[in-house]
């Protein structure tokens, strides 16, 4: 564990001795290894370490009786700061119906998460509407329809409609039926697929979602940075949902996407059941990433 490794580095220091440059460098190297092992992006780790180094040569560490522990504390605090700071809630528009768009790579968990959000909102006393705007994947609409039926939430589908037309139809329907918010499940796509990214942009410009959430698999590696950057630059994301977090992936992608976009992680997916959605807790994520 990182804390044990750092303790070992600093145990040679007795009382209020000055930390050597070598000890700090060695400590930073251990932290770097731990973060890379956790799938945090290479460049993001570099920037993060600069921040840690600044504090590591400061009084709080130098004057500590247990500098090893203090450095761990610094890293944990800096990670938590980086990850946190905002509420895990969905925004709502000034006048209904608000639209929430779920986007992301293939297989990240968007359809399941759309249904989870619908379930959560229903428990909170709202009456959401699901939109099966994935027009490409075999049986995608059916998948959302089955999930919607489980939780008593209506699903707008139409095998002959485009994603854009479906969203227009959904807004009208929601308005007439007083349903809110509208949860749009989009088809998985690559951030480098210009045509499909343009499709998303067109939907966004038409229905002005109050949330544009990137649904990201917690086991995503270094690629998380390009994915987040790609989706963010085209769509101006409002936040992230990290899925499959009940597994044993360290989840360093969370750090990368937060660092590169500044947008918050709002929820985490902890399983395949529709109840398995929770608000994001930065300190818990920080300690998980540190391993």
């Amino acid at each position, binding site marked *: 564990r990182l804390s044990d490794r750092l303790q070992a580095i600093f145990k040679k220091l007795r009382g209020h001795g000055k930390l050597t440059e070598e000890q700090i460098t060695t400590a930073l190297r251990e932290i770097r290894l731990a973060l890379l092992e956790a*799938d945090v992006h290479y460049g993001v780790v570099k920037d993060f370490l600069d921040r840690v180094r600044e504090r590591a040569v400061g009084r709080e560490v130098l004057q500590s009786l247990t500098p090893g522990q203090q450095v761990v504390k610094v890293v944990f605090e800096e990670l938590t700061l980086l990850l946190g700071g905002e509420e895990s809630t969905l925004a709502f528009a000034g006048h209904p119906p608000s639209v929430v768009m779920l986007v992301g790579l293939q*297989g990240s968990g968007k359809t399941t998460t759309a249904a989870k959000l619908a379930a959560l909102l229903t428990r909170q006393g709202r009456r959401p509407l699901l939109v099966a705007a994935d027009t490409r994947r075999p*049986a995608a609409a059916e998948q959302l329809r089955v999930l919607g039926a489980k939780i008593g939430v209506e699903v707008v589908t139409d095998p002959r409609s485009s994603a854009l037309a479906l969203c227009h139809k959904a807004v009208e329907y929601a308005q007439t039926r007083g349903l809110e918010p509208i949860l749009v499940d989009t088809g998985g796509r690559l951030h480098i697929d210009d045509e499909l990214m343009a499709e998303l942009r067109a939907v966004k410009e038409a229905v002005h979602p109050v949330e544009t959430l990137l649904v990201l698999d917690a086991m995503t590696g270094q690629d998380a940075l390009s994915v987040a950057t790609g989706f963010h630059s085209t769509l101006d994301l409002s936040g992230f949902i990290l899925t499959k977090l009940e597994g044993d992936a360290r989840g360093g992608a969370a750090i990368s996407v937060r660092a590169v976009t500044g947008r918050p992680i709002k929820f985490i997916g902890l399983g395949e059941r529709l109840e398995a959605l929770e608000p994001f807790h930065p300190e818990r994520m920080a300690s998980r990433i540190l391993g």
Partner: protein
Amino acid sequence: LLTRPRLDPDALEELEEILITADLGMPTTRQLLDTIPPSISEPEELLHFLRDQVTDILSAPEQSIPEGHPHVALILGVNGVGKTTTIGKLAFRGIRQGKRVLLAAADTFRAAAIEQLQIWGQRAGAEVVAHQEGGDPAAVVFDALQASLAREMDLLLIDTAGRLHTKKNLMEELKKIGRVVSRNIPGAPHETLLILDATTGLNAAVQVREFHQLMGITGLIVTKLDGTAKGGSLIGIVGELQIPVRYVGFGEGIEDLAPFSPPAFAAALFS
């Protein structure tokens, strides 16, 4: 960090960045960089050398596949990696090769999983054995095995539900499916293929180890290589476990599958 004084430290750092951001992980990156002979100093030479090293590692595992009639392949992997889609692609390949192909819809858990596979079956020209959603996956597999024998199928592909290797009960279910296969067709499953998503980071190695320990993985398929992820965790995985990579998936279309080519993969890594 590295003990090659003849190599420019900036060049080494650049290489390290290329390899780490390709998801090789630090241990494999260090191993690779440590193999650079002192005689090499030019960047061109360096890249060429590393490409060859990667190609060698990925070509090393034993490649033979046991023959079966029907040939039974069990498809496994964590959630969302591309199992069902890859089966569609494999089925199409088989049909193209003149084989009689049958698919088993043994993901009885996830919403519309059966329908999804049935559509792929239609696209490929392969029949699908399926029960109800919520049914026993082992029962589907049993029926599919019987059907492939009775109808003299050449190839049976078994789709399973995505599952995290951390879920003991789901891994037990998988083991049970494996037993149903081997009890009903001697020598089967002839292939147990783990599907890996190229966007996955270092957890891919954990997935392979866990599934391999439980089931004995005979081959890997890496999907979504049409994205920006390089799938570099494969190098450490193949090096450690000597499991061959059989195919790569590079798109959502039925033909977006190709036999794995170590030199092509190595070249893409450094491009």
